[in-house]
């Protein structure tokens, strides 16, 4: 029937069927069958002769004779355009195939492009400075001391390194501050950097307007600052006359001398201002005051190891040059410099999840390609006759390949365009759910590089799944089967398709297992007992700015007044305040000594501490273990009450009752006061859900024994109320009445802080879940496709079996078993690969092993269940075959 012209094929075949049925009814199927084959042969011959006759007459020639006259380039271009046109027409007649292919490609390529855009901004090019690979941050480590694993060092280190390090081109020192910035129109608490004038030279930054701080400013001790582009546009409406304006920043009036360009950030996008900081007079540096960050630019060719080796001995000589107590000398002995590239520090923890995600979408892309490859193999095989005829009529191998590639190219192009749209929509979504603190998230966009990436992927896809089947089916040997009847399906084709499905199943399983492990980790992590409540608690910070509020008691009075007013608001159950809010900023640390520790001469431990006031403990539901909580009388000069957490009590007075025991705040035995423990409260996890143990905490009263020893400047308030999520406006109004000059900032609910703490894990988990879901669907579709094809190939065999008495259930079982075999093989391989791969996730996991049997088992079960479901539909169709139909038709 393929010898007939296309428009005759359908109805001629149907007409022949009609007569066949008639004859079969009259004279029996055998006779009818013979008649049918005779007629078919005569039709083929008859129409072939007709065609030859037409050709001879010059009418309806199959190969236009004018073709030879055009040049080779024009010919090839025209061949391509006509092939594309025909491909479009063919695809329009097979909308199911076209849509599935386009959808598969669009999703896979779109996901890849979206993640690539994020990775590109965050990981590949995170630092907008010249020669950024030479920039390093220098910190210290002192194993054996009780300082954190890495800590920022003191000003004396900066001076010594500056003078002695020959491997450096430039060096700067800076601090992070969060301070009040006040102009005539606005006041707010902003993040700023207080740094040496060498900061900008080290970064090799140039301003957009004005100039940068220089040595001259240092000599004159000028109070100057440089503002960020975003501050300039939001606070000053991008007015260039801001240069030369003075306003208060961090308590001092300073002059703006420059504005930075929009893409400049150091070290991240939150910083609004860079203040020129003074290096303390070198003769008056008190050694041991840690907390300064050092940024340096290494000379070309120097490695971080080289630099660390050079700085070590320099640091060792610090006590010689700067003096300091014996404890300082001990610290220096244990100290070693730690040199990290700036990139390392800035990108930090975001790197691992992002690389994992990139790997994930790459796997999904390959699965999608496997699916599409399968679809194309089927398509190329069903076009074999068509290609065979074409070849017989004079088409060269290149023509055949081109005609098949045309479809692949068209689908890849449309799929690629759809992918670009998906990526454009997906990127803002990704950015929104990404964890805070991922560097450069505001720079993520679908840009030219991403577009090229997408186009590259689409081209790759077209080559992978279009070229291979095209090459195979255009081989001369493959074309010699004009005579063959029935559906053509080469054994190799079938094997390749089944292999592809096995690979898809295996990959999908790996992703499923990863997603499952992360989901369990997330569940475990979010159920960690923090030691305090987080529901319905509103928090914010206030920074009073009055001259008369300047010491312990005055600050305390201010805050107590505000707390009283808040407590009177409707719906408020309790109010408290604390200097260091859990999950927000971590805690200050200080040295606390007991009488026994001092007597023994040991180094007093470095412990987190915070002032607390109001009903802090009740509001946060931190339980009282023994003794009592602070009362109003404790927050007064001359009192010495202190509360400790259970872990601190155990650390300082092991197995003793701490109530009534004394604790010295500080290491200066001549001046620092003794405090008396009045109560023990439950432990809290301060900084992260992942902490293995709660932190020992010391809680001080709002006012110390003397007015100047400490003050709660800008504490975090905690307000318990069912309206916690919507209280901000009311409290702001209250504050405006009570203290209009005081900015209100860091406004959260505790639940938001919880979400933020979990964000890194939840981000990765959500994306991995989506990817594995996609992989599962693609794998199921792939399996369904292969089995459908197998069924259609074996229709005759099935029909014969059923005609010979096989039950439909047996037929269904045969198909399902085949599907199950493929799926089982895939699952087995997937489990093996997953074993090797899940180790990569270890840093993200929590409470669950990388080889968790339950997760592996459950996901394998899911995969098999889905595979069986995907097998069932073709199985059902197989069993519904009408034997008569099957044996006759093609």
């Amino acid at each position: 029937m393929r010898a007939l012209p296309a428009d005759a094929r359908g109805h001629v075949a149907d007409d022949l069927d009609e007569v066949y049925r008639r004859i079969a009814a009259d004279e029996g199927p055998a006779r009818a069958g013979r008649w049918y084959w005779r007629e078919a042969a005569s039709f083929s011959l008859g129409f072939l002769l007709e065609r030859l006759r037409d050709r001879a007459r010059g009418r309806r020639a199959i190969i236009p004779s004018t073709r030879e006259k055009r040049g080779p380039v024009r010919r090839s271009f025209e061949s391509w355009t006509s092939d594309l046109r025909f491909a479009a027409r063919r695809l329009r007649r097979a909308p199911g195939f076209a849509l599935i292919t386009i959808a598969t490609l669009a999703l896979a390529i779109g996901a890849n492009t979206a993640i690539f855009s994020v990775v590109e901004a965050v990981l590949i090019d995170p630092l907008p400075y010249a020669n950024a690979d030479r920039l390093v941050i220098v910190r210290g480590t002192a194993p054996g001391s009780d300082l954190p694993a890495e800590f920022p060092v003191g000003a004396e280190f900066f001076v010594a390194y500056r003078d002695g390090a020959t491997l450096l081109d430039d060096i700067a020192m800076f601090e992070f501050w969060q301070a009040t910035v006040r102009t005539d129109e606005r006041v707010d608490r902003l993040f700023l950097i207080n740094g040496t004038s060498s900061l900008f030279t080290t970064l090799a930054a140039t301003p957009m307007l004005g100039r940068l701080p220089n040595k001259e400013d240092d000599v004159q001790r000028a109070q100057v600052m440089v503002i960020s582009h975003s501050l300039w546009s939001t606070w000053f409406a991008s007015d260039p006359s801001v240069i030369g304006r003075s306003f208060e920043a961090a308590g001092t009036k300073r002059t703006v001398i420059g504005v930075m360009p929009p893409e400049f950030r150091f070290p991240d996008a939150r910083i609004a201002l860079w203040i020129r900081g003074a290096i303390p007079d070198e003769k008056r540096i008190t050694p041991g005051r840690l907390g300064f960050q050092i940024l340096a630019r290494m000379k070309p060719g120097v490695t971080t190891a080289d630099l660390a080796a050079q700085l070590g001995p320099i640091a060792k000589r610090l006590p010689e040059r700067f003096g300091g107590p014996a404890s300082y000398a001990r610290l220096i002995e244990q100290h070693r410099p730690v040199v990290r590239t700036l990139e390392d520090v800035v990108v930090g923890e975001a790197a691992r999840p992002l690389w994992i995600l990139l790997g994930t979408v790459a796997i999904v892309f390959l699965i999608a390609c496997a699916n599409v490859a399968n679809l194309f193999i089927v398509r190329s095989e069903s076009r074999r006759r068509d290609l065979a005829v074409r070849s017989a009529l004079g088409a060269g191998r290149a023509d055949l390949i081109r005609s098949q590639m045309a479809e692949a190219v068209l689908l890849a192009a449309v799929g690629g365009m759809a992918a670009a749209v998906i990526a454009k929509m997906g990127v803002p979504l990704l950015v929104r759910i990404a964890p805070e603190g991922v560097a450069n998230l505001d720079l993520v966009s679908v840009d030219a590089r991403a577009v090229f990436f997408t186009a590259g992927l689409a081209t790759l896809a077209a080559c992978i799944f279009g070229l291979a089947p095209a090459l195979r089916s255009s081989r001369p040997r493959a074309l010699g089967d004009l005579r063959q009847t029935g559906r053509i399906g080469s054994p190799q084709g079938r094997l390749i398709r089944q292999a592809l499905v096995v690979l898809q199943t295996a990959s999908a399983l790996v992703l499923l297992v990863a997603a499952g492990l992360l989901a369990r980790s997330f569940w475990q992590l979010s159920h960690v007992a923090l030691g305090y409540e987080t529901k319905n608690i509103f928090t914010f910070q206030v920074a009073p700015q009055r001259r008369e509020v300047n010491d312990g008691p005055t600050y305390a009075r201010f805050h107590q007044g505000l707390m009283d007013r808040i407590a009177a608001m409707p719906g408020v159950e309790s109010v408290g305040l604390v200097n260091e809010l859990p999950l927000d900023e971590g805690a200050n640390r200080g040295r606390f000594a007991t009488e026994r520790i001092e007597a023994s001469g040991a180094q007093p431990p470095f412990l987190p501490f915070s002032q607390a006031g109001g009903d802090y403990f009740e509001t946060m539901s931190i339980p009282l273990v023994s003794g009592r909580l602070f009362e109003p009388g404790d927050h007064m000069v001359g009192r010495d009450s202190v509360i400790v957490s259970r872990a601190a009590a155990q650390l300082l007075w092991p197995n003793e009752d701490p109530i009534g025991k004394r604790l010295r705040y500080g290491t200066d035995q001549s001046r620092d006061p003794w405090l008396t423990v009045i109560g023990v409260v439950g432990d809290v996890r301060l900084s992260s859900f992942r902490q293995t143990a709660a932190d020992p905490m010391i809680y001080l009263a709002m006012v110390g024994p003397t007015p100047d020893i400490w003050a709660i400047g800008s504490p975090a308030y905690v307000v318990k109320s069912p309206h916690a999520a919507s209280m901000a406006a009311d409290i702001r109004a209250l504050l405006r009445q009570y203290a209009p000059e005081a900015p209100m900032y860091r406004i959260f609910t505790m639940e938001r802080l919880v979400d933020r703490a979990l964000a890194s894990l939840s981000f990765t988990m959500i994306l991995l879940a989506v990817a594995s879901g996609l992989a599962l669907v693609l794998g199921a579709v792939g399996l369904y496709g292969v089995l459908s094809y197998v069924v259609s190939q074996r229709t005759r065999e099935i029909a014969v079996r059923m005609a010979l008495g096989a039950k439909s259930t047996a037929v269904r079982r045969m198909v399902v078993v085949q599907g199950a075999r493929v799926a089982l093989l895939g699952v087995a391989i997937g489990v093996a690969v997953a074993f090797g791969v899940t180790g990569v996730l270890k840093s993200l996991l929590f409470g669950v092993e990388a080889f968790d049997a339950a997760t592996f088992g459950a996901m394998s079960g899911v995969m098999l269940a889905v595979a069986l479901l995907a097998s069932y539909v073709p199985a059902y169709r197989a069993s519904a075959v009408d034997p008569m139909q099957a044996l006759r038709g093609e």
Partner: protein
Amino acid sequence: MPRETLGQFEQLVLLAILHLAASGAEDVYGVPIVDEIERRTGRPASRVAVYVALRRLEDKGLVRSRMGDPIAERGGKSRRLVEVTRAGNQALRDARHVLDQMWRGLDPRLEKHR
């Protein structure tokens, strides 16, 4: 436009179509055309010849075809229905006229000229 000359078989096909149309047959397509020719001529007709003739006639504009409505027996597919065009009618008349001219003056039963 030069009038198309009709081969003998083509005339048979056209006439069969006209007969079927005149008798009010539901669908005029390949199968009943073959039947009609066989019935009237009393001899078997080459099915493929009929179909090829139909194509040629359509190329010459003497017949037009269209796809009918989908029918159940064909599983929702339709038949290709044909009908004679005005040009086809004219061609038949011309052919008949030519034959008449050739026959004039001869005994219709051809006995006298044996």
